[in-house]
Every structure is written in structure tokens, then in C-alpha cells.
């Protein structure tokens, strides 16, 4: 469309640039803070330009941590976060694929009931049932374990729905052709359905990896042993040191490290991320 409104174009870009600044600025500040030394925060205003201590701060946090805050070195927590995010993402995808397959490709008594039981999980986010869930996990002896950190978060109605929607769009003839070709249900699942679901699985993995990585309340409740701390909950411990002002440069180095993996995933897998986000929520 021909449109000759230079002022409007200018305004459009102005809005976007201001938007980007608002979005980026808090992180820029954190980055700047993470490159300074301890003394730079006593002047009454945070520094606005990067300082010389970048490598030193990050090295210190990665390898040693802040012992007074009771948090282990960051590489341990980053490792835990990675393991947990991957277990949650893979676990959710696996059990959702299986249950969506059962619901779409089979007819059996109590099928509707099963669907509703899964559906209900949408209505019970962990935040609203913390205490009884904590109790179940404690009774099962799963506190301070990867199982306890991940298993209660693994059931997911949204992933099941996404796969159900996708399976319903697969032409009936494809499954019929496979049956005429002699494929049983497991063979069909492995040879046809899984390969066709690849893009959806990847998109969902991106979303669920982020979901697992940013978990805070649940790890906070079920871990008391610092060997199982995740980076997101560990940071809070670093920031909340009892003796007054935290060591800002080190806290912010940890913040940057905790943010980096999922943010990089979003930036470098933007297409999958957008697909996963828009499709799971609809």
C-alpha cells in the first residue's frame, strides 16, 4: 500500500526503540554491575558503563560462589538447572505423546474420564496446592532429589492437548495406509507418528525447557541440600544475605549467568519458540 507519512514512520520507529530500551535497560544495568568491583557500589549511584572486573567476577561465581550465602559455586547450580529443565521437558513430552496417542487413536472405556483427569491439571497450578503437594513428596521421601524436583511438574495438560490437536490433523488415510502396510500400533507410532511430530516436539521442547529452567517456588520448597539447588533459586539466596547490602557485582554476575541459557534458547530458536508458544496456548 502506498503510504507517504514520514512523521508516522518516524513515530513508529521511535516507539519501537523506546520499547527496546525499556526491555533491555534493566539487563544492561545488571551486566554493567557484574563487571565492577565491590567498591564501586558505595558512591550512591550504580555505575552506568562497564568496569574492568568482568572475567574475575564470573570466574569467582562459577567456581567458588559466595560461601557466606550458603550457596554452592554456580557451575553446580547451572548444572542442576540444566538437568532439571531437560528432565522436565523430555518427561512432559514423553508422557504427553503417549497419552495423546491413546486418546486419539484408540477407543476404550473411560476414555472421556481419562481426558478430564488430564484436563483438570490445567486448573491446579503448583502455586495453589503447594502444601499438600509438598507433603506427598515428603512422604514419598523425594525431598532433595532430582525425582522430587521434576516428577510433580511433569504432568502437563497443555502438551497433551497440543499433541492431540496435531494428531487430529494427521489424515486418517495415513494411518489406514500404514495398517494395510502391516504396521501395528507401536510400529505406526514409531515409524510414522514420531517422525511427523518432530517440529512440534522441538517447539514444545523450547517452551518446556524454559518452563523448567525458571521454576522457583518448587525447588525452593523441596531442596534444603545445596547440592540440589537450581540457579534460579540459588540467586535469591545470594541476593538475600543477612548482613545488609548484597555484594551487587557478584549477585549480578550470577543473574546474568542464570538468564543466559534460556534467553539464548529463545533468541537462537526464535521460530520454534514462537510456534511452541502460540500453539500450546491456543
Amino acid at each position: 500500500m502506498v503510504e507517504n507519512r514520514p512523521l508516522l514512520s518516524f513515530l513508529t520507529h521511535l516507539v519501537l526503540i523506546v520499547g527496546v530500551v525499556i526491555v533491555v535497560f534493566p539487563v544492561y544495568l545488571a551486566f554493567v554491575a557484574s563487571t565492577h568491583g565491590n567498591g564501586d557500589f558505595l558512591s550512591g549511584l550504580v555505575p552506568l558503563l562497564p568496569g574492568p572486573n568482568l572475567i574475575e567476577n564470573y570466574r569467582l561465581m562459577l567456581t567458588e560462589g559466595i560461601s557466606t550465602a550458603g550457596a554452592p559455586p554456580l557451575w553446580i547450580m547451572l548444572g542442576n538447572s540444566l538437568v532439571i529443565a531437560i528432565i522436565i521437558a523430555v518427561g512432559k513430552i514423553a508422557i504427553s505423546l503417549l497419552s495423546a496417542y491413546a486418546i486419539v487413536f484408540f477407543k476404550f472405556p473411560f476414555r472421556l474420564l481419562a481426558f478430564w483427569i488430564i484436563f483438570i491439571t490445567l486448573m491446579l497450578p503448583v502455586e495453589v496446592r503447594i502444601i499438600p503437594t509438598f507433603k506427598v513428596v515428603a512422604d514419598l521421601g523425594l525431598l532433595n532429589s532430582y525425582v522430587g524436583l521434576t516428577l510433580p511438574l511433569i504432568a502437563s495438560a497443555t502438551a497433551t492437548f497440543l499433541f492431540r490437536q496435531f494428531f487430529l490433523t494427521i489424515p486418517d488415510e495415513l494411518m489406514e495406509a500404514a495398517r494395510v502396510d502391516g504396521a501395528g500400533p507401536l510400529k505406526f507410532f514409531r515409524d510414522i507418528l514420531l517422525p511427523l511430530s518432530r517440529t512440534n516436539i522441538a517447539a514444545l521442547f523450547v517452551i518446556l525447557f524454559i518452563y523448567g529452567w525458571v521454576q522457583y517456588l518448587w525447588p525452593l520448597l523441596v531442596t534444603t541440600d545445596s547440592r540440589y539447588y537450581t540457579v534460579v533459586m540459588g540467586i535469591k539466596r545470594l541476593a538475600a544475605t543477612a548482613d545488609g547490602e548484597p555484594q551487587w557485582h557478584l549477585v549480578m554476575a550470577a543473574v546474568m549467568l542464570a538468564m543466559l541459557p534460556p534467553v539464548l534458547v529463545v533468541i537462537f530458536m526464535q521460530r520454534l519458540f514462537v510456534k511452541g508458544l502460540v500453539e500450546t496456548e491456543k
Partner: protein
Amino acid sequence: MQTKRTIFPNKLLPYLLLAPQLAVTLIFFIWPAVQAVKSSFEREDPFGFKTTFIWFDNYKRLFADPTYLNSVGKTAVFAVSVTLLAMSVSLLLAVSVNRVLRTNRVYTTLLVWPYAVAPVVVGILWWFMFNPSIGIAPYLLRGLGINWNHRIDGSHAMLLVIIAASWKQISYNFLFFVAGLQSVPQSLTEAAAIDGAGPFKRFWTIVFPLLSPTTFFLLIVNINYAMFDTFGIIDATTSGGPAQATNILVYKVYADGFLGLNIGSSAAQSVVLMLIVIALTAIQFRYIERRVQY
């Protein structure tokens, strides 16, 4: 409910396929939820030896408790503010991105990544910016004659959590608004342009009404987000204070249950929250159903 035209005839297999998800759901979702409902009708003595069934006493006490009612009020203010702020900013950005052609991918990339930042980290970032002694925001505000201190001033604290929570949600809303804008048929805006409507008129009379499904969807999602997914932000910035000023419902459940160890009251609060989620989900699904019929 829909299945395929032909189905596999196996009898046992579907149950085996469903077993993992059903087991996890029953053990970690349904059972705890039932427990929450049960304990919301009970009182536990201080030593945890004996529980008595007390009907609706926990609920009665809850709704007579001024701190709970205060929390309900704070939650409402918080949720409405976050929803309005986050949605209007993201709509403005989405409309702008939709107007630029060459650079829109760059802008999109720069705007979407906060989705991946954990709420608690968001809290720390903004807490740092608004730190009364060294933060940049209080420094600038002092220039305007405002003495910022969210540790003392309840409305400052509320403003801080609203800004932080909205900041995180912008990327999400932005993506959905962009998707919604792209699904508005271009022929309609072209027809309006030929009919003599300028860009602003086109937006308000054509695009915005057609965007209403997306807007409504985001409205529900944002309320849901503000009420339940902002625990980390509150915990990192204000911990519900000062003087309960930012003690939203989901934070209070945790504080009363884990820190205050008031199991009965916390269970009753959980049940109330579940009812709210169920209501929001029901609204959302009714709307999705209606949209499918379009």
C-alpha cells in the same frame, strides 16, 4: 470426543499408554487437591496430634480476617494494573512492528526474550534498579523531588511489583498481538484505505475490533499470570511488604502455610485459589469454543 475414523483395536494398550500421565496426575495433582479440600474443613491442634472436622470455620475465619481481605484487594489492584499496563504497551509495540517492514525481525528478537527470564530474576533486576540507596530510578526520582522508598512506602512497593511484573509479560503479549494482527485480512485494511480512512481510523475501526478474540484471550491469560505466576517477583522485591502492601493471595498462601504453619487457613486459601483458576479456565474455554464456531 473426536477420534480417528479408524482406530486400533487393542484393548489393553491404550491404558498402558495413559498410565504414566495418569499416575503423575493422580499422585501430584488430584490427591493433593483433595487433601487441600479436606484440610480446609479441619483444624489441627498445635502439636499436630489431632485434627477435628469444623465445617466452614476456616472459610468463615478467612473471610472475616482483615489481612486476607486486604490481600484480596491488593491482588485485584495488582492484577488489573499489570494486565492493563502489559497489554497496552505490548499492543502499541505490536502495531508498530506490524508497520515496519525490513527491520521487524530485529525488533521482534529484541523484544521477545524477557519471556525466558525467571520471575525471581525479574524481581532482582528491578529491585536493583529501584534500590533506595544505590538504584538509578530513585536517583532520577530524587531529581523530580520524589523520595522513593518501597521498603517503607506501600504504594511505592505496589508500583514496583506492577512495573516488574508487566515488564516480564510484555514479550508474551507482544507475540500474540503480532500473530493476531497478521491474521487480520489485509484486504480489509486496503478496502478501508480506499474508503478514505487514515491509519489511526483504520486501526480503531477495523483492526482493533477484529483483534478482539486475541485481546480477550490475553486478558484472561494476563489476569491468570498476575495472580499465580508472579510469586518469584514478589518474593524477590518486597516479600509481600511493607505492612502487607504487596501481599497478594498466592504469596499469602505460601507465607501462611510454610512460614506461619497455619495449615487449615492455608488449605482454605488454596481452595479459594483453585476456584478462581477453575473460573478463569472455564471462561477461557467457553470463549475458545465460541471462537471455533466462527
